[in-house]
């Protein structure tokens, strides 16, 4: 279970990680030289979700119900989620956990306004949040 306390400490950890990696490499610009580590991005992305036990179930069901999502690789799904919040991999790495949280939160709201939604076993979820759950499922398999 991901309690708020766990998550906050994880977020603090991630912030530290971003700062450390930035300084080690001598600045974020250098990151562009490398191809993105999609798994790492995905792993960080799914920390925005809580209750991973349930989120994973939802993600699994989404993948079962939607073949288009099922066919996406972890990389493709992660990239699509970055696109949804209008960031590329570099910008994501630069973004603080707080900023990434805000961007995804706003995207969820937008989904509910624009009715970009999916129905999974009777649940109405924003497409973005359902994809985050699917990503968690793919990260963990």
């Amino acid at each position: 279970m991901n309690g708020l306390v766990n998550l906050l400490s994880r977020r603090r950890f991630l912030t530290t990680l971003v700062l450390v990696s930035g300084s080690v490499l001598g600045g974020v610009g250098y990151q562009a030289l490398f191809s993105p580590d999609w798994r790492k991005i995905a792993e960080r992305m799914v920390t925005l979700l809580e209750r991973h036990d349930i989120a994973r179930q939802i993600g699994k069901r989404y993948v079962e119900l939607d073949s288009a999502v099922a066919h996406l690789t972890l990389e493709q799904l992660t990239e699509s989620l970055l696109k949804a919040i209008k960031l590329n991999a570099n910008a994501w790495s630069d973004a603080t956990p707080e900023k990434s949280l805000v961007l995804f939160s706003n995207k969820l709201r937008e989904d509910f306004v624009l009715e970009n939604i999916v129905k999974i076993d009777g649940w109405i979820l924003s497409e973005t949040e359902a994809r985050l759950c699917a990503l968690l499922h793919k990260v963990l398999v």
Partner: protein
Amino acid sequence: MFIDCKNLPDNSTIDTDVCVIGAGAAGITIAREFIGSPERVAVIESGGFKPDARTQALYKGDNVGLPTFDLEVNRLRYFGGTTNHWAGHCRPLDRIDFEVRDWMPHSGWPISRADLESYYRRAQPICGLGPYEYENLDFWTTKTGLPDLELDDARLKSAVYNQSPPTRFGKVYREELGKATNVKVYLNANLQELRTDSSASKVTQARVTCIDGPKVSVSARLFILATGGMENARILLLSDKDRSGGLGNEQGLVGRYFMDHILLRPGEDISLSDPKLNLDLYHSLHSVDGGKMFSVLASTERLMRKERMPNFRIHLIRASAQNKTPVGKIFTLLDELADPAGDRPRLESKTKRDSIALHLVLEPVPNPDSRISLTDKRDLFGQKKIAVNWQVTDADLAAVYRALELAALEFGRMGYGRGCGVIFEDQEHWPSNLEAGRHHCGTTRMSTSPKTGVVNRDCQVFDVPNLYIAGSSVFPTIGYANPTLTIVALALRLADHAKEQLR
């Protein structure tokens, strides 16, 4: 004054100015309006002061439509009528409910909300309600200090409901009617039929019978039928000696367009992402200035016009979820940052909840095939019983689906939780918990023309100038509001009109 009809001589005649048949919310309201007036009023009430099994059995009938009706239990047949067990939820119909809505077949009242406004205000204390502030949510949030949800006006709004104690009309107004000298209430008096003059243009007599008692007749200048949303139609259909097919039934409309609110309890659960979300305004009753209120979610005019929807309301109920998976909790962090209004009034609730249940109440599309008709089965007096064929349509189902979807969208948008309902798994079929609201309407609908209705804007049966109908059977459409406040408002209006006619 109360008179037990059983004590009257057989074949006697009651001579009066106004004969009101039925002493429920409508009949009692009309009778009270005449207290102290120069007119003599006879109220003919089937029951006594207490329920009686044989009298109640006169309401028995067959349900040949959707299997949710229990005709006998829904309606109560004794002094005070069904208000002896009503729940007391009150609200006027919305302005739009009276309009012709081009997307809703057979919609449009011949009167507007403005025509009823002053009567609604008068009806308010009669139903034991507090301040008449239905369109002013701020009044209640200020008084209670409770936050309302920041809903998107293009979709939903918070609407005000008032709560009656609930007023048991038979108990509350018994003494007053008992003391009235010009109003006589005849108990244990069962109307059998209405008879007209030879040209069948005027009611001359009401034939009344007691169980194990005399048969009497009532002659009056004006007759007002107030026997409830189903029985009003039955009486007109039974009164077929002078006009074939029954009174007011030249177009075959009596009994048709039978409507009731479509209920899904629950229609959906919301798994909360914020367990301390303060929904007290919606969950509990709040005492304000001598009245009680709570709030519901309701469709906005914008939504109805844009999406061609019927009217609906949604109760937010403290109840455990059918689907107990706390999906909302997945998004707690992401939802915490949602602040659509920019200034979230996050008063925290004292009690934590994982979920709430949404109870949907939907306005049905008027449907001529949904109807009440007479059968060949007979009651104790040998009168034909009714069969009720309550129908709902695909249009109703589509509206149910959309209403619940909109609620889920709004809870997600506001960042408060995620919706889950069986209907989202199967859009084609009605969920098994479909119920009727116990609000029997439409069977003697009000209209501008006898081609499309049974009564005119004054609730007078077309072509029968001295016969009027009181009660929800005259509603051509029913919005989402429970009917009794409107029944009482219309009864007050009818009483004013009747006085004018008599003087």
